[in-house]
């Protein structure tokens, strides 16, 4: 116990300030003001792997490490789509996951947001479209924000999530989106 406390005390707080939202990642034109009014900055995310190679999952998990202090921003991952405001979807959508993705989307209460993650989620990536892959996430469910990268860094993921929830006015003021 003493060692545990000593370790906590000696490491201190490593959390970093969050990056600004990157509204250039938005692909859905209609801003859902309603969501922002309702949610403020408390956001529940349900992650769905719809066919990913698991690279994106590693970076989503990295978001939960102390450097990014996700919960400090009011964002947390939840276990059920019924508790979620936002779906974070990875992978090209495999045909074997199509029904599960549609059902998970349907189970998420309105109003809801969808962020597609990674090159595969944005375009189908290297897997493309085939007998087994349906390609990009927006081929199957509506997508608000798409974050490219293979895999995108935690900072980019966070920028995409924030772009989905922060006000459009923010983008007009932030002329220099940081690189991630």
């Amino acid at each position: 116990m003493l060692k545990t406390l000593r370790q906590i005390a000696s490491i201190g707080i490593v959390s970093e300030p969050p990056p600004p939202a990157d509204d250039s990642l938005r692909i859905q034109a209609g801003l859902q003001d309603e969501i922002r009014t309702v949610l403020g900055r408390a956001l529940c995310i349900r992650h769905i792997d719809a066919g990913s190679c698991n690279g994106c999952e590693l970076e989503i998990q990295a978001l939960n490490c102390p450097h990014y202090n996700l919960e400090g921003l009011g964002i947390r991952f939840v276990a059920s789509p019924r508790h979620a405001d936002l779906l974070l979807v990875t992978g090209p959508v495999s045909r074997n996951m199509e029904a599960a993705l549609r059902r998970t989307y349907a189970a998420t209460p309105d109003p809801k947001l969808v962020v597609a993650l990674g090159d595969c989620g944005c375009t189908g990536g290297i897997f493309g479209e085939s007998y087994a892959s349906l390609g990009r996430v927006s081929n199957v469910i509506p997508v608000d924000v798409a974050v490219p990268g293979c895999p995108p860094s935690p900072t980019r993921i966070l920028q995409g999530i924030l772009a989905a929830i922060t006000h459009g006015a923010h983008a007009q003021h932030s002329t220099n989106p940081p690189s991630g």
Partner: protein
Amino acid sequence: MAPRDWFARGNDLPGAPGLRALVVSEDEWREAALDLAAAGGRLVALWASPENDAPRVHAALLAEHKGIVLTLSMADPAAPFPGIEDLFPAAARMQRAITDLSGLRSTGPDTRPWLRHTAWPQGYRPLVDPPRVAAPAEAAIDVYDFVRVEGEGVHEIAVGPVHAGTIEPGHFRFSVVGEKVLRLEERLGYVHKGIEQRFTQLPILEAHRLAARVSGDSAVAFSWAYCQALEGISSCEIPRRAAWLRALYLELERMANHLGDLGALGNDAGFAFGLMQFGRLKEQLLRATQDALGERYLMEAIVPGGTRYDLTRPNLLSLGRCVREIEHEARTLRTIYDEHAGVRDRFTGAGTVTAELAARLGLTGLAGRASGQAFDLRSDLPCEPYSQFSVKKIVHNEGDVAARVAVRFDELEESCRLIQRILGALPEGPHRTQVRVPADGTFGAGLIEGWRGPVCVALEAGPSGTIRRCHAHDPSWQNWPVLEHAIIGNIVPDFPLINKSFNLSYSGHDS
């Protein structure tokens, strides 16, 4: 015959060192598998090259510090090929996958589809018929014939494919009495993306990028195994510096995954402190990797003929410092895990796979070494540069979650040692050389000990720089069936912990 007689009959196979290739008849196919199984051999991979006129089935087997790829040329494609699931239980699902992808049947008793759910019709053979793209549509509901457990008080818990955490999709069907698990049956294949068909559409000199994405957490292992096979059939000798850099990448990948798992395992045992501390160390390592090599995860690092990135002297020194720091901190955290009564209680005796069961079922890689299976390609069948390192093989015998944690701690330390060894004596010279397009019909295999276990890539060249057939095999194929045994008699709430202690790849398996 003894395994060495089978090896003697074969020819050298290009790619990984110590591999032989042998074309066998149907009788010899079973006989060779029987002899190798009797000598304690292991099945690495089983796949088919289902060309219409002359379909072939291949088995990669290891025994006595050598490997052999058996090729069975099927005389009659309509007749089933002899299954080897009685000798190597892990073969059962591989044979079902062969049927799904190529239409070839085995004599194995389980004829349920495995990778094919409702995504493509039974008559379509992805590896034989022309590629097709079906339009998105509401897929039919998948019905799978799970084995039912009957009796008073038995009920089923169905979990997945979408799970509660940030993990990959798969379905688990538990049959339980109260909290106790009587039986677990897995249903996988949800993230099947058609990778093996996709390989045949890519140029052979570029498909290492697809190999890296078979299982993202093992990108280095897969891309190295692919390049090893390609360089073998192209008669390309990579520069020494390239081989050493690849080993550096592979050990960095091992460290990152072990750090992540050690944190997640603490968390699953109710010790969130572990997740935060190891999450911090992993993030430090990823950032140091990014600073030194330009990527957090080394998805693009290995290319045919060598490596994409070189390592400058200042980057070499800073990477070395970061690894030394992590090694020191991980040692402190290990004593905290070891002395924490709650963590010990959850780890010890959970999800036990005895050494005897592990040997019978062919448990491999990290999980195998936690159940007394003393096998590690880095010391048993080493390629350059591991042949010069005398890698310490980490083996524990208890076979429980605690043992799988201990293997990770020990391997983390060994990886730190190997990295310092590499950084201290990195050969000078180029880190990349030219690779020529291999001749049509040449066949080779790569074999690399990834962090999870042996990764195998078999590659057959087509005409003018195309791929005729590429099979990328993840060790999760061997270990998923064993997880079904590990959970028997444990309680349902311990499943996430036990599952995490194996941390198997869905994507690598489903591919």
